[in-house]
């Protein structure tokens, strides 16, 4: 890899009560990379991205982004640096229209952000790209599930991120819908955004990722290209058990 390191997670540990969710996980994501993060339930994927996005504070270890330590920054500051995420269960701003949902990050997340008409124009462009422009004036609370998933991604895009974390954006969707979301993520990558995909739908992860890291029980057990991962004995063991 010649691209510079974008995200650098350095032996991050997180405990909940007596339960260790992450036991010293390290990984690096390079600029513009398509990165897959997989692992069985409870392996710590969501905890890890909560630590990266700032929703949780890790107990030990450090997180660096673009060569600067962000371990102690609150979530909104990290977003401004260029880390965007979508939520596993969509969390739209339900009382706003779809367009307004995108104006929030457009106005807040980018330095000196666009305001008013500029923000709306930017938001509209993103909605077109994602295929939600027809719903721009609809109230977000009334969208269908697939529309909400798209809105999650659109809103994350409005952050103008350098890194997008997609947390199970496809869970429960039909296979045609999975392809739609996949196409959106490829399009984002085309624009130079690094994407971390967390997903259980192997077909999607294998197709999308250039590199995959596998977590199990809060530890990193494998790393490699899709083919490598599929034939990795440790991965097989993690999924099938011993």
């Amino acid at each position, binding site marked *: 890899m010649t691209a510079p390191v974008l995200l650098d997670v350095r032996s991050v540990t997180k405990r909940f009560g007596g339960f260790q969710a992450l036991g010293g996980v390290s990984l690096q994501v390079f600029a513009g990379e398509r990165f897959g993060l997989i692992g069985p339930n409870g392996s710590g994927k969501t905890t890890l991205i909560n630590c990266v996005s700032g*929703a949780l504070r890790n107990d030990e270890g450090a997180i660096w982004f673009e060569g600067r330590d962000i371990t102690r920054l609150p979530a909104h500051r990290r*977003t401004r640096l260029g880390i965007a995420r979508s939520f596993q269960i969509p969390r739209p701003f339900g*009382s706003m229209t779809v367009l307004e949902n995108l104006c929030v990050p457009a106005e807040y997340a980018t330095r000196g952000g666009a305001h008013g008409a500029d923000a709306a124009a930017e938001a509209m462009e993103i909605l077109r790209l994602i295929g939600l422009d027809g719903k721009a004036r609809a109230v977000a609370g009334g969208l269908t599930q697939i529309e909400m998933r798209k809105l999650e991604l659109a809103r994350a895009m409005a952050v103008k991120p350098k890194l997008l974390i997609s947390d199970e954006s496809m869970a429960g969707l039909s296979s045609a819908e999975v392809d739609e979301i996949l196409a959106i993520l490829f399009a984002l990558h085309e624009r130079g955004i690094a994407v971390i995909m967390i997903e259980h739908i192997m077909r999607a992860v294998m197709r999308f990722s250039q590199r995959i890291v596998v977590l199990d029980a809060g530890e990193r057990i494998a790393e490699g290209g899709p083919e490598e991962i599929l034939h990795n004995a440790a991965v097989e063991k993690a999924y099938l058990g011993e």
Partner: protein
Amino acid sequence: MSGRVLLAVAVALVLAAVALTRVLENQYYYFATYVILQYVVLATAWNILGGYTGYVNFGSAAFFATGAYTAAVLIKAVAAPFPVLLVAGGLVAGLLGLGIGYLTLRLRGVFFAIATLALAVVLQTLVVNWGYVGGSRGIYTLRPARVPFFDNYVEFLFVVMVVLALGALATARWIERSWIGRGLVAIRDNEEAAECMGVPTLRLKLVATTVSGALMGVAGAPFPYYLTYMEPTSAFNLDYAINSLAMPMIGGTTTWVGPLVGAVLLGAAQQVATVTISSALNLLIVGLVVVAFVILAPEGIVGLFRRWRARARA
């Protein structure tokens, strides 16, 4: 309506109010309208925090009284001119909002609500024990002998309140349409998602408590001149606490129009009721109406109107 039209309406209203003072003689109407306008300011101020952000303030009376007593002290100590009273009242009450917010807003929202509830009782205790402002006996304030343009001080106060009400509405409308307002609503809808979209949630909530508190303080600043004799019970009257949240609830909390509608309707009804029935009974009615609205029409009158219009269109 565009901003320019509204501005024209506002200027026209102020001019009309001034013109009215040349015509109308009966002082009662000025007193009654002053009270309603004061509620427009309080309800609008409450809604900036409670409606947009979803944090409930039960201590409106405390912020209002802070403005009133700040003014009373300045009048007594340095005979400060009127504009200074407004600014100082707003400033002190705004700082109070900032302080309470800073202490409690990092916790769950209910703690903020409880803190404001207790704040009113305690500030009242402090004032009751404060000899300089007369303690529980109260304090007299002499109105300036004359004001330019007006032959009567009450008429002057009435026009001041018209301007303050319009100012509060303009502030609320500006916040609502700006990126700040959008940030506040994002907090109400989903605070965690807002934070992840780059919204500095704590800072914005503090802005809201400060602005909201400051506007309530401004509303209270002319109070000593309005009453000429003020004691803690009237300044900390629970009417302010219930009305400033009842009015937005009844009118609708999502837009700046809601508190205005609620304040005018409920305020006017109360003025009529106080004259014709008793003031206690009218408070009871407010209580019942509030409970009925939160249960049956949580979107308020503005929400009902919108739904009705949407249905008419479909």
